[in-house]
Structure formats: C-alpha cells, structure tokens
C-alpha cells in the first residue's frame, strides 16, 4: 500500500540495473510503503546518466510530501546538480542525500516508511556512513 503522505525517493545511477535492483531491495526492506523511482543509465540504455530520466523520476516520486534523491557516483551527481540548477518544475521540498548508495537507499526508505519528513529521510540516509556491517 503506497501512502500519499510519504516522502518519495529517487535513485540515480550510471546503471539502470543497479538503480532498479537497489530500488527493489530498499522497497522490500521498507515494507513496500514508499514510492522509490530508479533513474539509471542513458536514454539509449548504456551506462551513464540522463537528465530526462531524472526529471521524470522526480515527478513520479512526488506524492506531495517531497522527494529525496540519492546519486551513486561522479556524473550522477553532476547531472543531478545541472537539473537542480535549472530549477523548473521540481518537487517541493527536494533534497539530495550524500550517502553510500545501497545503504543510504535502505535507510532512507525505512525513514520514509516510518513517516519521516525530507529532513529526517536525508539524515537517515547520511547516517549510513557510520553503520558498520561487521
């Protein structure tokens, strides 16, 4: 059941498979209650990033409670920055989480599922820097 009051999440990766797989895993850990939209790869299906894919994903993730975006590396960050600098028709509020991609996506999804706002979701994602797995 997708709740209209929850923050949406966009995962920006160079790889469509990586973005989709991360969305699948984070969605399952989060109990399927959060909209997570992958934006991976170029428009013609190669490794890379697409400003149009990110733009569509932001709109698709927006339920009215705002959107948190996690980029994977390098040009994901640069393409996202270019889109945010352009600034038109973006969800409000919108925030970028500076976090490890998979761990941040899982933590962000759980925080959104628990009803956290954009700020709480970003801080949950960024706490992933400090989470040890061993």
């Amino acid at each position, binding site marked *: 059941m997708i709740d209209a009051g929850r923050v949406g999440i966009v995962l920006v990766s160079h790889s469509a498979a990586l973005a989709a797989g991360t969305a699948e*895993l984070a969605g*399952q*850990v*989060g*109990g399927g*209650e959060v909209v997570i939209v992958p934006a991976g790869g170029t428009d013609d299906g190669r490794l890379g990033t697409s400003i149009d894919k990110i733009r569509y994903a932001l709109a698709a993730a927006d339920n009215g409670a705002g959107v948190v975006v996690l980029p994977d590396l390098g040009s994901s960050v640069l393409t996202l920055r270019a889109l945010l600098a352009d600034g038109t028709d973006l969800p409000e509020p919108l925030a970028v989480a500076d976090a490890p991609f998979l*761990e941040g996506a*899982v*933590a962000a*999804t*759980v*925080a959104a*599922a*628990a*009803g*956290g706002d954009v700020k709480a979701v970003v801080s*949950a994602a960024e*706490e*992933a820097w400090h*989470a*040890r*797995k*061993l």
Partner: protein
Amino acid sequence: MPASSEASITLAGDLHARPAGSLAIAAAKFESSIELTAAGHSADAKSVLSVMGIGATSGQVVTVRATGPDAAEAVAAITGILADATKVGS
C-alpha cells in the same frame, strides 16, 4: 526520571534485512529511545542499518531496552516483532 522497560527474547530465526526494516519502522513510532543488545553488540532500534549491523542469528538472546514515556509499549511491540518476524519461513 523517565520510565524504562526491558525484556529479552530468544530468536527463532536470523534477523534478516526485511524484519530489521519492519522493526525499525515500528520503533520509529515510539517516543522512547530503544536499544537492542545481542551477543555484546548494541543497536539503535530506530536505525535499520544499526539493527542489521548486530547480525543477530537464530538461537541468540536479544534484549530490548526502552527509556521514555512509552517504554513499556515500545518493548512489547519490538519483542512482538522479533518473535513474529524471525519465525522460520517468514
């Protein structure tokens, strides 16, 4: 002084990613701080990565300790999730 409450449970299965997620989502609803301890490792129950990080496995005893105004309810809810979510086959 804030109320505190504590209970222990023996896990029937491993604490996998999915139950860790359900546990953290449920824990976030309480005002109390909630700590899990298993085999000397502690975790903040409201942080899914922290909960997964303790690596609790079948047969281990997990202690749930809550401190705050809804401590007793929090401990009851979290031990209930640990009992249900780690059942074999879940």
